């Protein structure tokens, strides 16, 4: 046998072979690179049936600046926003999720959760892909952390949403699951049409929206559930890739517009289960006039990237409820835990049970003309 044939390191390669090998490698590399780049560029630059020019953006020397949420992405032509929902096409900003929701369901309104808003009614719920947060524990990550181009969608323009809502005998349309802020234009147009058709609009959101777009949308909203994820900027940044203050601003703006508001706080062990932080959050809510708005403490279950954590202990949720009540919150509920009696509404004045609930069922209701049947204390909410 020759040394040449049986050496590991080919130090004496023939010129021809070396040339062919290197040429094929280079050619393959160039072709792959070219194909990947052209595919990516082509995909991002195309508009489609579900593209609409965005309402809030401005042109800057660095590209178009989206004005919908505090992320305020500045996009060069062809670039996509962090919410995966907006693209810069020829220096104009387009939403690519207009009329193409990927999730369409009808849910009990209590599931949102909204316990003081039209009990026992059903909400026609829609969501498109994309979100302006990147929560580590997102239960809808398969739609929130991707682009509408990558999900299987329905062709459901606003007029069809309204029609289907009516067909399904739902009294409201819920913009939910992923993040309605990221499909704002679709929400706005649908909400206007829904209002014309005497349907209610329900906004289930992280509240991470700029004031101007919210001011425009709020008059068409009937209820909102804002997920106040924590009361710490550091946690907002690490857990959700967001900031706290804009969410607080949203709560205040919605209140200003008299939108019925309920607040949800997911208690995540080792992240948001600090009672001192919960106390501060509740004190802020009370001092800013949210003591009459229901506050839901929800149980966390390991999901998406937060899988090395246990479910929230029930004792922790009950402590959070107690902390909130001590701070002055009048209607505090515990969610995702069945049958522990924390779904009922107790009159803040006479301490009698005025709404007895079990899951989605309403067992008894002692509210007459939005007042406690027993003592006449006004119970905030939209009861019919």
């Amino acid at each position, binding site marked *: *046998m020759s040394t040449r044939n049986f050496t590991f390191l080919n130090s004496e390669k023939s010129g021809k072979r070396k040339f062919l090998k290197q040429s094929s490698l280079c050619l393959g590399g160039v072709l792959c690179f070219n194909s990947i*780049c052209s595919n990516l560029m082509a995909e991002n630059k195309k508009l489609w049936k579900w593209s609409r020019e965005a309402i809030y953006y401005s042109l800057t020397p660095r590209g178009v600046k989206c004005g919908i949420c505090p992320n305020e992405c500045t996009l060069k032509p062809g670039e996509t926003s962090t919410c995966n929902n907006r693209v810069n096409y020829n220096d104009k900003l387009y939403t690519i999720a207009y009329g193409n929701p990927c999730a369409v369901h009808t849910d009990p309104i209590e*599931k949102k959760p909204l316990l003081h808003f039209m009990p026992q009614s059903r909400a026609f719920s829609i969501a498109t892909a994309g979100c302006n947060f990147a929560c580590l524990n997102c239960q809808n990550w398969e739609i929130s952390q991707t682009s509408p181009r990558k999900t299987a969608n329905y062709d459901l323009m606003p007029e069809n949403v309204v029609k289907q809502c009516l067909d399904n005998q739902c009294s409201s349309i819920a913009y939910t699951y992923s993040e309605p802020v990221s499909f704002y234009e679709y929400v706005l147009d649908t909400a206007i049409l829904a209002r014309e058709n005497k349907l209610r609009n329900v906004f289930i959101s992280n509240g991470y929206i700029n004031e101007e777009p919210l001011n425009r949308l709020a008059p068409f909203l009937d209820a909102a559930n804002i997920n106040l994820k924590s009361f710490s900027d550091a946690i907002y940044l690490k857990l959700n890739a967001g900031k706290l203050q804009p969410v607080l601003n949203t709560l205040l703006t919605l209140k200003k517009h008299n939108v019925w508001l309920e607040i949800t706080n997911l208690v995540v062990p080792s992240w948001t289960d600090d009672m001192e932080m919960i106390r501060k959050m509740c004190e802020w809510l009370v001092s800013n006039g949210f003591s009459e708005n229901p506050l839901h403490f929800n149980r966390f279950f390991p999901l998406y990237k937060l*899988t090395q*954590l246990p479910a929230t202990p029930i004792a922790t949720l009950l402590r959070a409820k107690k902390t909130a009540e001590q701070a002055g919150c009048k209607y505090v509920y515990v969610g995702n835990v069945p049958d522990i009696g924390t779904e009922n509404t107790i009159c803040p004045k006479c301490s009698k049970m005025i709404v007895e609930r079990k899951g989605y069922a309403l067992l008894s209701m002692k509210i007459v003309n939005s007042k406690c049947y027993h003592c006449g204390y006004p119970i905030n909410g939209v009861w019919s």
Partner: protein
Amino acid sequence: MNSAYLLVPLTIFLLTLYSLSVFLVRLSFLTQMVHQKIWNSALLVSFLGTALLGFLIAIQISYKIEWSFSEELLKWHVHSGIALTIVALIHFFRHTGYYLRLFRTDRPAEENEPTPVDNAFPEKNHLPTWMVLSGFLSTCIQVLLIREITTVFQGNELMMSWSLGAWMLLTGIGTFLGRTAMKYEPPREQIAKALLLLIIMPVCLVPLLEILKSELFLPGVMVNPAWFLLILLVFLAPICLLTGFIYSRLVHSNSQGSGGFSRVYAFEAFGSLAGGLMVSFLMVQWFSVIQSLLILLVMTALIAVIVVRAKKYLITLAVALVTTVASLLFPVDNWLKSFLFVNQKVLETRETFYGNLTVTENAGQFNFFVNGTLLSCSDDPITSEEYAHYAMMQHRNPKNILLVSGSATGILSEILKYKSVENIECLELNPKIKDMASRYLALPSDPRISFVFDDGRRSIQTSQNRYDVVVFAIPDPSSLQFNRYYTDDFLFILKQKLNTGAIVLYGIQSSGNYLGEARKKIETSVFQTLKKNFMYTEIIPGERDYLLASDFTIRTDISMVEDSSGIDTKYVNSYYTDERSIQQRGRLIRENLGEKIINRDERPLPVFYHTKQFIAGYTTLTWPVILLPALLLLAPLFFMRTVSMGMYFSGFTASSFEILLIFTFQTYFGYVYSAIGLIIALFMGGLVLGSLWANRVVPGKKQFVLSQISLAFFALLFIAYWNLQSAMHGSQAGLVLFCLLTVVISMITGFQYVIGSKILPGNISLTAPMLYSVDLIGAALGTTLITVLLLPLVGVIYSCFIMAALNLLISMVMVLKKS
């Protein structure tokens, strides 16, 4: 990551590697020249990394190209920059004298590097001890570290295959570098030092791993696969490189001895065999990972004291003994695991045959973790009730119930609410789960419950019982282990054990509000496979998606079923389960299920889709993540020729078949965990036999090519074996065939390795480690590809065809070569 860039970890890692390199020079394992070459190469690689990634970023910015991996690109660019800076600083400080001399006017003459003193191995009689110890330690450390990595990072199929692949690759690199790195003949003492270092490193690194996980990553977060791979390489590099170096060193020391280098191979394989048995049957049963490593340290120090007879090892032994005793007396493991389970009180953590079990307590709630992943927690009525009642309510008179897994949940208590129940058989693979659960949960003590601690599939196959309701409270078909309960072949067996009108329930991860592509494929496969075997199949969406199958009609109107059965429940009732949502969502899922995918033992497709779904959580580049490690492992092929290529594919084939054999054993015999020692023994024994056999024949190209062709034939033979096995259903004859095949594949590899090393021109002390490294790199490719890609995607039979084709192809190339 907590911080944006890995400034501190990278610095620590590079300085550790540099210290290791300096240490190896001092041990005479490396020459100054090789040491310099390594660090010059590191300088070049980090420079090229920084430059090329910077170039790509420049292209992206200049041409406004949007890449989903832009942020990653920037991160890697900065990381390469950090590495470059550290290596450049090392380089600068190392050559300070040179730079200072540049400014001197009176330059002294360059000093020559001192000529190494030929330090011959004085007593070669002890070599077998070191050889066996080397194999023993490397196998023990490998098994223990991979277990620990799995627990810390919640290792899944992909991550575990990467861990094994990385181990083989790095050991291969270590062996390859080691083959030319040593010009000295170090004394036995230095081998002893190296082996001590080999075991000291994991002793230090395991606690560091737990602490770093909590320091570098956010609490409770499953680490991004890219970071996992980086950490894996960083963590394993010092240990694996040293393992490879030691092998090369031993081959070098024994190349001229009786039996030559093949003795090293055989002794090392024997040591690995002993290590595999010791760690599987003794250590993980009684000790934690850190305790096992400390015991190994004591053993190594003791051997060093006996063999080398130097007093200084007595000090090492004393320190190791004290530390080991301390680790046995104090709850060191609980303390270490508390870094992993933040804000939870670790009540108990222990290694078992089947992985790590940890129980934590948080605000009165008990949480059970298996290999770092939550198995169950107390106060979870939703899961317990859904599993139990969605199945039980379907049957008018459920008497005999089979519950597969789920003893650490409240499912048993829920099933017992049905008065008609006469017998509940609870199958649990790991008896320690039930032991732990009974300590912390109020498990019902009812004479109707009988626990069977065995592989579920095997137990069902051999059971004489017939069941009315079967509940599978097992994880999704996310791994080869769990997919076995979802296949067409298994359902066929299960059906034989069902009474008329029996109902079967599986709970898989919920599709939530949207059925993603990968989940759709998984759900389709489970649904269609059930549909193929039962007349009626339904889906009830809940906290999980519950798939029910029966030959009688199935009702999904839960409230009506509930009303008729009159069972008191907290959650599964008309209050909490919204009938309309269940009907609508169930219908929507069924309508969206894709084309017919039948899940078969031979082709466990859902495992692949699970890998895809896992990767999709982190990046859109699913295929590159799966294929890139494999492509990188293929790269060395460009620098190889014939014999090396042949050995590379032998390594690939052997490791793939090792996994295929374990998979076959698990599928048809079911007790792979208790037989793992036997499988290791057979495989290592085959290697020893093969190498000894090769010593008895005259080495030549013909033998090498013939062994390559035998591998191709083995692959074809395996197809026949697989088909035969499915017909025999785990008979004794099948077991004998399994043993025979395990020995044969390893024998061929051992034989080919020895022949290959001998027919390669040059010094055997160089060629043998080189071929060993090629074999390991090929094996790394096999491990990386077979579990997550080949087996699930193309199936056993086509995987065999691919391997047969590859081996025949390389054989043809060798035959056609004019030599």
